[in-house]
């Protein structure tokens, strides 16, 4: 069941679209904002609000990179690994991150605190290498600065 808040927020999104399916992404993101990810039941409930079948909505949901259909940690770290950041040393950041968190790229820490994901070019190549944690951009990173960012987000290593 969608929570009262989720329902209200989705209804709000529906107000601004001409056709209900246009709110697919926004509605899924409402669920994701509240739950961190889109679980099967959430997907079904959103689908029925949008007058779509679960298959139709899941077809859309699974197409996009940033709709999470599997659980993620409380903090989602997106590390840019595209060309400029790769040249500028994103691999050393990744190495530091996987060491510190003890999980490989694409995984969630056992305490469900962090999920580490690669992301295509974040459009901040002049600050390369960069990463994004919970929507906040961090540029000019070094392995040392990575530790600081992790601590800012509650990492107690």
């Amino acid at each position: 069941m969608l929570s009262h808040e989720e329902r209200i927020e989705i209804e709000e999104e529906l107000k601004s679209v001409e056709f209900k399916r246009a709110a697919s992404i926004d509605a899924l993101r409402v669920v994701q904002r509240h739950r961190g990810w889109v679980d099967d039941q959430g997907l079904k409930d959103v689908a029925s609000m949008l007058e779509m079948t679960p298959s139709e909505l899941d077809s859309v949901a699974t197409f996009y990179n940033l709709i999470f259909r599997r659980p993620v940690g409380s903090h989602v770290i997106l590390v840019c690994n595209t060309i400029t950041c790769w040249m500028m040393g994103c691999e050393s950041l990744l190495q530091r991150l996987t060491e510190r968190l003890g999980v490989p790229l694409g995984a969630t820490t056992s305490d469900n605190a962090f999920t580490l994901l690669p992301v295509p070019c974040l459009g901040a190549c002049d600050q390369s290498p960069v990463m994004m944690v919970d929507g906040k951009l961090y540029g000019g990173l070094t392995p040392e600065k990575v530790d600081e960012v992790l601590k800012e987000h509650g990492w107690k290593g």
Partner: protein
Amino acid sequence: MAKILIENREYEVEDGQNLLQACLSHGFNIPYFCWHPAMHSAGACRQCAVKVFKNENDTRGRIVMSCVTPIAKGMRVSIDDPEAKAFRENVIEWLMSNHPHDCPVCDEGGECHLQDMTQMTGHVYRRFRFKKRTYRNQYLGPLVNHEMNRCIQCYRCVRFYRGYAGGADLDAFASRNRIYFGRSEDGVLESPFSGNLVEVCPTGVFTDKTLKSHYTRKWDLQTAPSVCVHCGVGCNTIPGERYGGLRRVVNRYNGEVNGYFLCDRGRFGYEFVNSLQREKEALLKTPNGTQAVSNEEALKLASNMIGMGGRLMAVGSPRASVETNIALRTLSGAENFYSGFSRHEARLVSLIVEVMERGLARSPSLKEVRSADAALVLGEDVTNTAPVLALALRQAAKNGPLKAATKLGIPFWDDMALKTATQGKKGPFYTAAPYAIDLDSAAVKTFHGPPVEIARFAAAIARELNGSLPIVDGLPSGTASFAREVANALLEAERPLVVSGTGSGSEAVIQAAANVAWALCARGKKAGLTMVMPECDSLGAALIDSRGLDEAAAAAAEGGFDTLVIAENDIFRRMDTEDAENFLASFSNVIVIDHILTDTARAAHIALPGATFAESTGTLVNFEGRAQRFFQVFAPDEARQASWRWLKDMMDSTGLKLQKWETLDDVTADAASIIPAFEKITRAAPKHGFRIAGQKIPRQTERRSGRTAVEADRTIYESKPPEDADTPFSFSMEGFQGQPPSPLIPRFWAPGWNSAQSLTKYQEWAGGPLRGGDPGVRLLEPKSAAAPFFRAVPMRFKARKYGWLLVPMPRVFGSEELSALSAPLASLQAKPFIGIAEEDAERLEVEEGDEIEVRANGKSFGLPAVFVPGLTRGVAAVPLLPGMAIFTLPAWGVLTRAKRRAA
């Protein structure tokens, strides 16, 4: 016509086609995957690349995808161009990079389009050396098997399932090289057209699970052209047999009827032929019970019964062939022959015959239905009574928006562009039914109400179209304006269509539907009128005799009859048990011929084992009025034979000189001479003596395995193939290997084309009619020049305080007698229930699932309540499931709460 140059030779091609279609039509081989003649071009697979040159000075040319390239006058095309060839080979190489190469254990092997296309491109050497991607498969129900690793991502499955058939539970998931086709979770595919995935899929992702349970390669199947016996549409099929069992049914293209697709009832219903309910041997009722007897003995006893000179009555069947019914009528004489309809059915079908014979409106073929540009469905739950007609109507519903899109210059075959332009908009398509029906989702607007209200709604439409028709009093203003909207939409169309039928059980609905179509005709419109009838030969039987079993029983009750002969009819499905028992009891001798052991056969003094459609040959008349021939696929066990032949044998052995038949053709010829409407019936297919270059047409393929070894466990001799005097087919692999006339095509195959896609080689042009015209002959054309309007308008529906109007609710799985015996389909049947409007739950003091006692026609049943959307308050829906075809519907009854559901 436009002239184009292919490999520097000039060819005439149809204007408006795409290049792929044009080249295939001229017999060129271009590999393709995503293009499908019914679903057209998607441009996804990039397999059909050819090279196009600007003019004769252009030596470089340009690679194009032929399926998305419009024909242009004078265009120069090369299929053999080395660059184009190399690219096509690349495409296969990509597609095969992740393919599991599991052909030996794949059900598609030997009829795989991917295999064929791989061969065609010449790709042999594998360069991709990395790990293949793999997927998890899903459980999709008892009909369709899923093996995603074989997928080449051509998108045909979703384009068919969603785009063509209106399904919503199969889709494409994820992206890049992780695309997945399936459901959002495991589960039975909901569409009654899911089986088409088996043929639509160019490889082995979706395969026939029923075939899998008794698997045989395509080349080992013995096949013959057949006609589906599971509803009145008359879809053409190709059943395949091996070792005395039917292994599967696939589509047999008939451009005028089913085109490329079947419904799941038609595709998987065949398992009844293999079922345990089959009558295996002649049975004789003795004081000590039933005992099996030899055919000779049974025939002798039966002949004695009919030869004693007493009066004889014959009851035929709407599910038997024309020839069987004619044979019965010959035996009993016209006066004592009844087609075996129930009292209620008889009224409905005779009304329909009257409408079709007297009326102005033509009954269109399904091809014409698909091209209708406005349609109105009245009272008929088409998806559940005539599924493939529903599929055709879904296409018709798109025609309005498509017409608008083609004004933007988008060709009819550019499916992706049309999707963009039409945005899933609906054309003028309207439905009216007692409850929410599947086709509502394709309609712009729907009407829900009990049959009389549907009739009144239709009467209001007719009145809008023709001022001489009676005004409908007391219509709510919303309904009146809706009627006006529908009338205007039908008038604006070029090819409007009205669909109704026996499904609602209401004569008033049929009459009102006829009025609408006739009113359109009277306004100069070429309106079509489709009247759905439930069984494979309902119309054929009705054209011979449309009196009901009630009249037969009344005649029998008057006395004087000694013997009753029934063929292929379970009268217990059509009469109250008591009435049926009394009816049977009024005869000293009851002989029943049937291929399944029905209650009627069990009650017979002599039950003779008949042959199913797969074991016999005959003619069926579909509800369009098209006579079509089905041919014997395999020779049945010795005991079984076609009903008409049992009858002939009986007549022969009694010495009654009632006929001079030698082959089936003689019976058909009699039908043509006896029944005026059957005048043209012998043209349905070539006669038994037809030969090509002196040869018969083989039912077996050239590469059939084990011809000389199949009986090696019993005999070292190769036995003689069974004789077949009734058809131009042989039970062997010897005979003419080329393309026979369209009604005689036993299977589709062409060199290099082992899959169903070989069909294009049999068509006049790719996607067009079969060469020489599509099979079947139309028997009925409208005769009248004036509209013989019905003048009565029914009274308004009034919900009763204590009574409930029970309306019939046909179900695609369960309502048809024979397919209900197919085990995989039986497993999909709903459990009996009583459908009520959710708003009535309070009145009945029930929740969904609670048991309700339903009383009507002096009978009573306890059934769980199911909320059915769209039902009017005071109306309840009775699903027509096995064991529930008990009420004459619509009827008034009483519903009461039985007991609370267990907490």
